[in-house]
């Protein structure tokens, strides 16, 4: 059993209340621009900007090479400046946050075939006075086992985990030797502990990229705040069901208290201490919780990771500002200009969430 075009539409409609929308290219899923941006960022599905290499922001918003250190990688920042932030992307590609988007799943056998389809779609849309950039193509690679749907599964799992109060992220930074897990979920604030009610955005139950979309108009839309802290890791597969080796390796880092296998049709988790996110016979997402919480969390590793995550989140919030606003902010605090990455890191790590959010409120 595999996920094809039809199933993509059914799954998105059933699980997230998105509408199916009939278009000149066939049935699509209608999404508001923010949901669509997250969808494209996670799945790599591309806005139909050209027929050769259409645009996706996937991979744009990296901050650090590894977890628990502050070596910056080109992404949200470069050269001690804000670089590929959603706001900067918006300035060059206005269509990203203007008007609803339509997700069109397309099955194909080769890149050549897909590019011919892109070309044809663009012509049809232009003939019908529609903007191709409002269409996002979900790749369904029929030549690959499982149709190459891992990124789609990552999207399903992250959206599912958002409901449980996790801040979610895909392709999370750990380290070269520890690997790059497909997804992470961070429930590091609870209503009873250190969560600040800032009236602008709840820092839980969202994709970490959404923290950078406040300036662009993202509305707060999360549910009740989580009551239990947890950090989880997940690995998605659409063909092979073997994820245990990787998940065990991630758990061995001592950072995570639970691990999830993500597979559309797997019946039960490989190990009693793994959870499983899957689809039932009617394509409803469901999860099987781990039998027991993994007990190999190491206190020191966990503490260091949580401390780093709490700082890491601030970088996504800061990305709501422009470079001029960031420089001004820094100067007001430290009385001088940012001269290098070290300055920037020291500054951002020293800020309180409330402080950053108040700053964002001034520019929203």
């Amino acid at each position, binding site marked *: 059993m595999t996920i094809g075009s039809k199933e993509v539409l059914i799954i998105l409609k059933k699980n997230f209340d998105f509408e199916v929308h009939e278009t000149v290219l066939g049935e699509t899923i209608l999404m508001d621009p923010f949901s669509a941006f997250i969808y494209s960022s996670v799945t790599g599905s591309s806005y139909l900007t*050209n027929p050769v290499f259409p*645009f*996706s922001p996937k*991979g744009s918003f990296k901050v650090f090479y590894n977890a628990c250190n502050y070596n910056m*990688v*080109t992404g949200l920042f470069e050269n001690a400046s804000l670089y590929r932030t959603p706001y900067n992307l918006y300035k060059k590609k206005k269509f990203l946050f203007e008007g609803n988007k339509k997700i069109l799943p397309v099955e194909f056998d080769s890149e050549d075939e897909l590019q011919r389809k892109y070309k044809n779609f663009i012509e049809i849309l232009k003939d019908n006075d529609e903007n191709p950039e409002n269409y996002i193509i979900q790749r369904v690679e029929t030549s690959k086992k499982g149709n190459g749907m891992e990124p789609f599964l990552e999207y399903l799992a992250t959206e599912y985990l958002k409901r449980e109060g996790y801040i979610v992220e895909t392709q999370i930074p750990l380290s070269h030797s520890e690997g790059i897990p497909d997804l992470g979920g961070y429930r590091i604030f609870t209503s009873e502990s250190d969560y600040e009610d800032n009236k602008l955005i709840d820092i839980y139950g969202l994709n970490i990229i959404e923290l950078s979309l406040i300036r662009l108009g993202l509305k707060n839309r999360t549910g009740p705040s989580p009551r239990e802290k947890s950090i989880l890791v997940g690995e998605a597969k659409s063909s092979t069901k073997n994820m245990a080796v990787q998940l065990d390796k991630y758990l061995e880092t001592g950072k995570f208290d639970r691990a999830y296998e993500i597979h559309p049709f797997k019946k039960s988790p490989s190990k009693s201490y793994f959870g499983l996110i899957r689809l039932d016979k009617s394509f409803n997402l469901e999860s099987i919780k781990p039998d027991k919480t993994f007990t190999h969390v190491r206190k020191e590793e966990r503490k260091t990771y949580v401390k780093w995550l709490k700082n890491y989140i601030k970088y996504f919030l800061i990305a709501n500002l422009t470079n001029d606003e960031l420089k001004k902010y820094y100067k007001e605090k430290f009385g001088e200009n940012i001269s290098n990455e070290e300055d920037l890191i020291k500054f951002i790590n020293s800020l309180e969430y409330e402080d950053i959010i108040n700053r964002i409120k001034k520019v929203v």
Partner: protein
Amino acid sequence: MASSDYLLKQEIIDELGHEYDGIKLRIFPETSDEDQKLFSNGGLTFGYNDLKYGSCDACWYVEEEWKCPYTEDKISKRPIIAVEATDALNRGSTGNAQYQRFHHALGAVKNGLIGIYYLPEKEGQDNLRSELYGMGANASSIENGFYLINQDIKEIKKLLKSIKDDCSEKFIGKKLDSMNEKFTKWLKEEYEGSWDTFAKKRSTIIKDDYIIKYSARNKRNFTDSSQRAGHIAVGEMYLTKYFFPDQKFYYLWPRMTKEDLVYLDENKKNDKEWNLLRREENVNITTIDDLRNVPQDISTKFMDVKSKPLKGDALKKWYSAKNKMEELLRNNEIYIDQDSIIEYNNKETNKQKRLNNF
């Protein structure tokens, strides 16, 4: 490619578009593996002399007839420029890992195209290895096409314009002059402009009619995929080959035996990098068993550390043995027995394959 390399592809599209005045772009997303196919089969890989080189990230072509030198098939798309892009410098790569993708664009150069190795760098940084300029410039002088080292996407745009304006030779000539200049300056600053000084500092021995380059490669480097030794060894191999383009070259791995080589030949038949190492013209992989007059204590030391990670005592032993070996090779007290070198047995050519199929 790493996901930051995917952003480089996006940058190519953002800066140059998907078509430049009739010159079209072939490029695939990160999830696709079609770049592994030959260009003549719709991919981004080039082959030459029965050898496939690494896949490229992008290729500009025109709608004209072209005969693929690898398959000898005629197709209706003529490739002009092939680019291998890497964000290695921005990921902190300062060492020989920078050479490891040099061969990806080399296949295109051997096919007579313009090959570009694109390595952008953060403003204010200067970590590009100058060796690459020499490798590219010398490859341009002996191969069929041109090999350009590039750090600025706008330069690719200028190259495309020069092709449309029919003045690409002048543009490329200037670029190669600048690469040569940077390389010569580096050689002067680092090695007093002397190849002998270079050789002494870079595990290289220059003989009258051949070159020896030695390294600590061992069997495990090639059987453990996480070590990426194949890529790095290929990069080092091309560095020596293009620094001494007219010379026969022995790539000496004294931690390996003939038996190891036979094992790797048998087990890495479909490995692109292994095939390049074993079949590149004028390059001979040489093991401890191909050396003559090696004192017993030296060969024992090499064999003691043959499978060990080079650290602590193993590293000390390696240094002591390789320093002595180098001295004796320079004095001709140890020599390479050319008749002992094992030729690669995976030499079924395309022509043979076609004949066999026929």
